[in-house]
């Protein structure tokens, strides 16, 4: 945590972004396409060695920082809490989010929601979140961090996926596998090591059915038919959603080869109608 706090003391970006865009404040945004483009460009151009601390952001935009500091998460229809206010998406909010996130006086529910709010923040949060994932003790906060990191750019995504898949908490492993899905599905596995694929194969035997299901889905995007036998093992999984994920994954990877595995496992006679229907569609 101390390392991260040190980094936070030298956080970048927002001052430059504020200077470039005026960083919108609290009320409903009136963002234009041009402003978005400009903001995105500014974020990309940030020199992360020219630093701006939380204190400096606070000095530059005290009202905005005060608002982000005071806001409480909103309880969603699914009963989970989120910082869904649009001001949390602004890059200028990033150092404030981290400031609250690493403050152990902050209620846990807030810390979880803050970790989740990084996902759509337009600031350079990804490396910091990755660092925090490796040191954070609270399982639920790590879930929030991993969830955000599953939406990261490929250079962070591969590291995040590996870290997540090794986590002790099944929910973190699940989002780690989801990070791998995005990495392979959207970025062709850019930056992925062989270790990541092997980790995914290992997770096919995870005690948590959700992790198994997401891992088999991730492997379906790797274009590595060598793992098909291991993936086919889930066709007889106890959990129907995992069996369904296995059917979809095998077919995506190699429909002809999948047919052989499906026949061998007699999945057409699966007691779950969703699984049986998926086979019937072939």
């Amino acid at each position: 945590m101390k390392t991260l706090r040190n980094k936070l003391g030298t956080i970048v970006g927002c001052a430059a972004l504020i200077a470039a865009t005026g960083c919108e404040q609290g009320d409903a945004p009136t963002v234009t396409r041009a402003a978005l483009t400009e903001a995105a460009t500014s974020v990309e151009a940030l020199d992360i060695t020219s630093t701006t601390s939380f204190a400096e952001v606070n000095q530059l935009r005290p009202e905005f920082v005060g608002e982000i500091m005071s806001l409480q998460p909103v309880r969603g229809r699914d009963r989970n809490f989120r910082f869904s206010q649009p001001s949390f998406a602004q890059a200028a909010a990033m150092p404030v989010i981290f400031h609250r996130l690493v403050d152990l006086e902050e209620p846990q529910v807030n810390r979880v929601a803050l970790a989740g709010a990084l996902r759509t923040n337009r600031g350079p949060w990804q490396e910091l979140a990755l660092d925090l994932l490796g040191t954070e003790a609270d399982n639920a906060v790590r879930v929030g961090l991993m969830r955000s990191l599953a939406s990261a750019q490929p250079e962070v995504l591969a590291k995040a996926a590996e870290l997540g898949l090794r986590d002790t908490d099944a929910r973190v492993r699940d989002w780690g596998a989801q990070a791998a899905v995005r990495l392979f599905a959207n970025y062709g596995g850019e930056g992925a090591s062989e270790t990541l694929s092997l980790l995914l194969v290992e997770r096919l035997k995870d005690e948590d059915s959700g992790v198994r299901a997401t891992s088999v889905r991730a492997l379906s995007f790797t274009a590595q038919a060598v793992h098909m036998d291991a993936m086919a093992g889930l066709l007889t999984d106890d959990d129907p959603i995992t069996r369904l994920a296995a059917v979809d994954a095998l077919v995506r990877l190699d429909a002809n080869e999948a047919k052989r595995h499906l026949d061998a496992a007699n999945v057409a006679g699966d007691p779950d109608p969703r699984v049986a229907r998926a086979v019937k569609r072939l």
Partner: protein
Amino acid sequence: MRSRRWLTICASLSLVAGGLSACGKDGGGSDDEGADSGTAGETGGDGDGDGEAWAIDNIYGVTNRDDDDGNGKPDWMDPPFAGDDDLSPLTFSAEMLESMGNTDVARLTLNGDLAGIRIWGASDGAPLMGANSGSPEVSSLDLSLDQMENLSIEFIDYMVSSTLTVERIGEDGESLDSTEVTVAGSPLILNHHLQPSEHFWVVSVNFGGGSNNASMIMDYQDLFGEDFSSVSGNVYGGDVWIQDEVEFGTQIGSAGERQDIIVDSIRDRGLDNFAEDTADTVFAVDTWGPAGTANSCDSFGNLEITPPITVDGVDYPYGRIYYGDGGVGCRVTEELRTFLDAQKVQAPIETDTSWLCVGHADEFSTFIPDPDSEKGFKFLYADTGEAWTLLETMDPDTALPRYLDTHGHGTVGEILTDNELRTRNDGIQANYLDPILAQYKAEFGLTDDDIILIPSLFEQCGGPGYNVALIPGTPNLIVANEDGGTKLIVPDPYVRPDDNDQASDPFIADFVARMPASYGAGDVVFTDDWYVYHANLGEVHCGTNVQRTPDMPKWWEAAAHLVD
């Protein structure tokens, strides 16, 4: 209950004018409800050989579960009192009264649900027959002529039914005349989208940081004026999901009674007290299921009703109830499922919502009125293929600031090239949306002509198999049937760069184009539900509740085939 003044007049007229047939219309039940209450059950003559009937019409009533005296208890827990207008008059015709000899008695025999029905006499005290009349309940009673006035029947529970036999017994104990009538309490009938809307509620909140629903509140105020209530979010803990907390239903009786019911969910979040606070002396409030056991599927965005339909030759004049089975740990509480099944008239079905984070049936479909169509409605249903097709017509560089804020997709192109998203939605379509639509077609008797597909995309929100609307779920809308016609209050999809330029949004234009021809300019209102609702996994329907008029046929006639 509604129509109190009418019922009082009717009850007093009935003795004078010879029975319920003297009663006129009421604003509550169906359009033509006089007091014809079904089959008179004469089983014997009047014993004087003149061929005149000794007969009473069947009696169908409403439960006395509201609180007309405002004493904090349902009225069935009190003895009848002035102003308690939910009892059904038990009225004997002038001919019946005239036929009574000096030594004759009227023998009433009640068979059936004695614990759910009771008969009161003119005087205060214990009921004469049925529930709480004794232990065991009194099921037979002789009345002298002077005791035959001002009798009333009270229904304590839904769908209770008894047979009431009324005999004229002579001095020697011989039965001179006899008639048998059905005495039954109305089922609970949940409202559907073809009924007129009477009142709307939305919880007003400001979560700060640019998240408030002031714009949506203003839209409702502009559209519905005094028929709309803005509920203070401060009072209810910022709980905006008012659709989930309560469901409005109704009962109607053969004397024109109307009893509106608020079904209060066991969900019990911030809005827990909304039902009680709103009930006043008008609504009855009932809850099914044990407190503290709620899961997401117990919310009433997961309790929907079709319009009147005919399925394989069977008419459902009040539609059918449908709700989602959200999979492990997410199912409507058994007590409510059992109760709704027992009401019979809306024959519930359950569908698979296990693929949704929230798991509610309102997230991907709805019914809207279409007066020009044979069935009078259209069914809106989410379709992911339609969304991809529409997005592909757009400039991929089109900026999507709202999506960037909430979902991370900054342009149309970023959505189109998101292969994870595309394969996810392909799977949702094939594994869930298509099979559920096939189920709905079968269970609701729908044809392709009845269905309007609505472009929709979903994204992951929880574990691997859990999803929620990425593009605001436009079928998750509110139907308002006002004097001036139907209006739809629809979540603004914001598939455009400029928040303020709805005219530039292809998804809005597409939605309007898909609506039936009867929807003119201004009938589809797109409202901003983004940060308060959409970003928190709900939409306009989830955040609104509507009370509707029971403009419906008599259940004892139109749904006799379902009740029997």
